[in-house]
């Protein structure tokens, strides 16, 4: 934040115009990342601080932002009245699995796992909470609000890792906005988290309630309601 840096006045700072969460600008773009890094490191040789320089270039845009936009081509199972929500959700997880597995193979890592629950257990754990139950799962050392938050983050990461492994439009990956829009408006998983937000917000444990209100659905999606 430029505003915050102006107040703190660190010796040397490079302001970047990229979205929050991407200080080096763009994933899988070595040349662009190196350019940002060099601009920051070059400030070390200057002694006329406090220095606050602006990085001049925007991150390369996803080409899909310039045309019709990214659409997840996988047909996700629709909820049916005669089936329970857990099995519909598990089917959705299964429909995305080959892309998630590919993402893990290609990257050699995954951001899923901070809750130490497998994806099927995440589904059961979170949807039980969304129904108003109080299940217990995961490492004992994690307190309840922490485990709930990590489980939500792992669950969201499973979807976005699967989405970013798919072929993008015109050879570029979907933007973070497109992935968020897909997850929160079109998936059963996003819908379950919206119901979870509502249930947890009413919880008598204040930290669980804060987790529900603030740490599951981002500000940008907070207007959404469960279908």
């Amino acid at each position, binding site marked *: 934040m430029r505003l915050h840096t102006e107040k703190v*006045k660190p010796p040397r700072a490079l302001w970047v115009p990229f*979205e929050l969460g991407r200080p080096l600008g763009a994933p899988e773009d070595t040349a662009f990342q190196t350019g940002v*890094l060099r601009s920051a490191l*070059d400030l*070390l040789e200057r002694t006329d601080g406090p220095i606050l320089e602006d990085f001049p270039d925007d991150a390369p845009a996803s080409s899909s932002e310039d045309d019709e936009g990214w659409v997840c081509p996988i047909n996700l199972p629709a909820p049916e009245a005669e089936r329970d929500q857990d099995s519909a959700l598990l089917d959705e997880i299964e429909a995305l699995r080959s892309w998630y597995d590919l993402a893990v193979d290609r990257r050699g890592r995954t951001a899923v796992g901070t809750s130490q629950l497998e994806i099927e257990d995440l589904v059961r754990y979170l949807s039980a909470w969304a129904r108003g139950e109080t299940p217990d799962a995961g490492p004992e050392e994690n307190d309840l609000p*922490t485990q709930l938050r990590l489980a939500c983050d792992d669950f969201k990461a499973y979807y976005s890792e699967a989405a*970013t492994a798919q072929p993008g439009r015109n050879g570029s*990956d979907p933007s973070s906005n497109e992935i968020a829009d897909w997850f929160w408006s079109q998936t059963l998983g996003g819908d379950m988290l919206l119901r979870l937000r509502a249930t947890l917000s009413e919880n008598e444990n204040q930290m669980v309630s804060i987790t529900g209100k603030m740490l599951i659905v981002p500000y940008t999606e907070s207007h959404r309601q469960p279908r």
Partner: protein
Amino acid sequence: MARMEDMDETLREHLEHLEIPEFPDTPLAKGPPLSERRVAIVTTAGLQRPGDRPFGFGAADYRVIPSDAAGSVQISHLSTNFDRTGFQQDTNVVFPLDRLNELAAEGVIGSVAEFHYSFMGASDPLTMKDAADQIAGLLKQDAVDAVLLTPV
């Protein structure tokens, strides 16, 4: 989108009214040329090694990220209001260790530190002072004379 004007209104208002510590002066140390510096990364992205303790509410402590564990780091930051999909695709967009190693191999910087450190930036930075002082000592022990700070 670290441009305020591009942000969601609620987030922008939160950031505009965030209490920010101010300091009476700015220390400005001189050092050797960049090509001789040993560089470490200190991030507030809430990074941890897989299986390490996740960051909780108000966490003012840090996690150690050794260079050889950089490829498998995970995020346990509290906030849901920054993009994580970039990090999921490529850790270097937050924690650019591969880029630093390349610059060291090219001779642009002297070397890359053995250990790096992560805080979780949703906590009040003033509560992190003790941990930051410890890290300063650890960095000196590792002969580090340049630190790259990466927020999310």
